[in-house]
């Protein structure tokens, strides 16, 4: 790793990966608490449409990606407020978005390479400019998330009481969708459209299995996302296999381990007779 560090492309990839992993680890816990896996997937695929659209008209794919995930966030927020509505709304938006994406792809002069990097990530090809953009996006998203974190968790976990306590539920949903759009854009750069869930859901899912403590869950989620990303980068550089494969492999391994070890760790905190008649 020390010798690799001398290469600019490695430095840039590591920086972009670290920023992405921290953001994804934090956002992921809210995504799982709000049951928004499908929204994340939908946003990423609409992001694909935006990226291919941008390429077709000669703009950088990152611009189209960000514009499309924002548009998807607004569409999802506007079309469906309730959970069941939301699923159908996301399905509808994403199906049409992908159709457009395929059209843009065939119109694009640089068909194959661009499509490949959007679909599966291009972290080892990021430029210095990409890293700066990624850092700004990441910091903005993290600051916004920090500002709304407590009421957002309240609203996600316990919406009825949160609403009664005066928490602005709809505003928080909208702001979170925009933060999520930024996180998806970052994650697409590392693992690609098809694998965003590997950073935005899996580390949080693993962390939840390890602890019920909210602060620790956040720390574990970020650590697992970081370890998967950096581990994936190093392995990919040495083997020349795809980064996305290793990142998804490491995060999945963490998830499996958490599922195996989680029950033993959680038992310490569970009441002795949760399901017994004497429970209350």
């Amino acid at each position: 790793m020390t010798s690799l560090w001398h290469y600019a492309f490695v430095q840039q990839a590591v920086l972009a990966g670290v920023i992405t992993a921290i953001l994804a680890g934090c956002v992921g816990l809210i995504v799982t608490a709000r049951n928004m896996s499908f929204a994340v997937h939908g946003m990423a695929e609409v992001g694909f449409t935006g990226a291919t659209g941008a390429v077709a008209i000669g703009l950088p794919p990152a611009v189209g990606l960000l514009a499309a995930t924002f548009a998807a966030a607004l569409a999802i927020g506007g079309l469906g407020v309730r959970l069941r509505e939301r699923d159908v709304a996301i399905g509808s938006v994403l199906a049409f978005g992908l159709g457009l994406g395929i059209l843009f792809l065939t119109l694009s002069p640089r068909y194959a390479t661009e499509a490949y990097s959007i679909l599966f990530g291009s972290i080892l090809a990021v430029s210095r400019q990409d890293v700066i953009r990624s850092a700004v996006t990441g910091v903005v998203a993290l600051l916004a998330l920090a500002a709304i974190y407590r009421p957002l968790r309240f609203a996600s976990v316990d919406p009825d009481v949160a609403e009664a306590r005066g928490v602005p539920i709809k505003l928080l949903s909208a702001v979170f969708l925009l933060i999520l759009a930024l996180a998806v854009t970052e994650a697409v750069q590392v693992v690609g459209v098809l694998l965003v869930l590997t950073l935005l859901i899996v580390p949080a899912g693993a962390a939840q299995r390890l602890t019920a403590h909210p602060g620790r869950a956040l720390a574990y989620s970020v650590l697992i996302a970081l370890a998967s990303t950096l581990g994936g980068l190093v392995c990919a550089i040495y083997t020349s296999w795809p980064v996305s494969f290793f990142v998804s492999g490491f995060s999945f391994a963490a998830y499996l381990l958490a599922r195996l070890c989680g029950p033993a760790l959680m038992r310490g905190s569970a009441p002795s007779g949760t399901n017994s008649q004497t429970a209350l």
Partner: protein
Amino acid sequence: MTPDSPAIRLDHASLSLGGRILWDDVSFGVPRGEFVAVLGPNGSGKTSLLRVLLGLQAVSRGDVRVRGRAPRRGNPAIGYVPQQRAFDPDLSVRARDLVTFGLDGHRWGFSLSTRETRRRVSEMLVRVGAERFAESPIGRLSGGEQQRVRIAQSLVGDPEILLCDEPLLSLDLNSQQAIVELIADWSRDRGATVMFVTHDINPLLGAVDRVLLLAGGRWAVGKADQVLTAETLSHLYGSPVDVLRVHGRVVVLGAEFCGHEPVHAHQLARPVTRR
């Protein structure tokens, strides 16, 4: 709030939702410290009444006052126990965290809770008998345990008014009694006003001061003995209703009163649906 204004006051208040009148021209006041049960069939506007008091729903006509003022969202003088909902067992939220939300969940930012907040939360968990499972994930607690945590969450801010929406639903009889006692004790100790929505009055008979009946757009309010009579209920439901008293429990015959739960022999103590 003026010293003598009632905790809750409805003045010719009506509520229509989706073109349907839920209740019409309701006028009554709840003095401070009173324990009122709100009783009625499904869809009679019991939950909507709580939403009105919480400032989440406006009345169609008339006036509503909470501590002498118009209802407003996020009123810290109100504690709220919502209808039960299932929590994901994997959610990283402990019983303690849910109670903490009741104190500081609405505040912006992400900082850790203050020492004072943690102390009050711990005290409240002990008070409701939830300290044994305080560190457990909320989604892995039994219904009765979750309701204890809910009660702690609603009381931790020391509210003057407590609004409970069917907190006894799907609890066994012992748990029902425990929850009612917790709330009644609190109401007595702190002089807190309670509005308790239920479709079964029996677990509450020892605790309630008055009963508000909502049915088919009509309403009645009074002592349980006065309101739960064949005469009042027949009038409210617009069809003949009989009320029996068996071992201090009330059995209502003839009205669609109990709602959704099938009636078993051992549940005869509940208001029973008979056609």
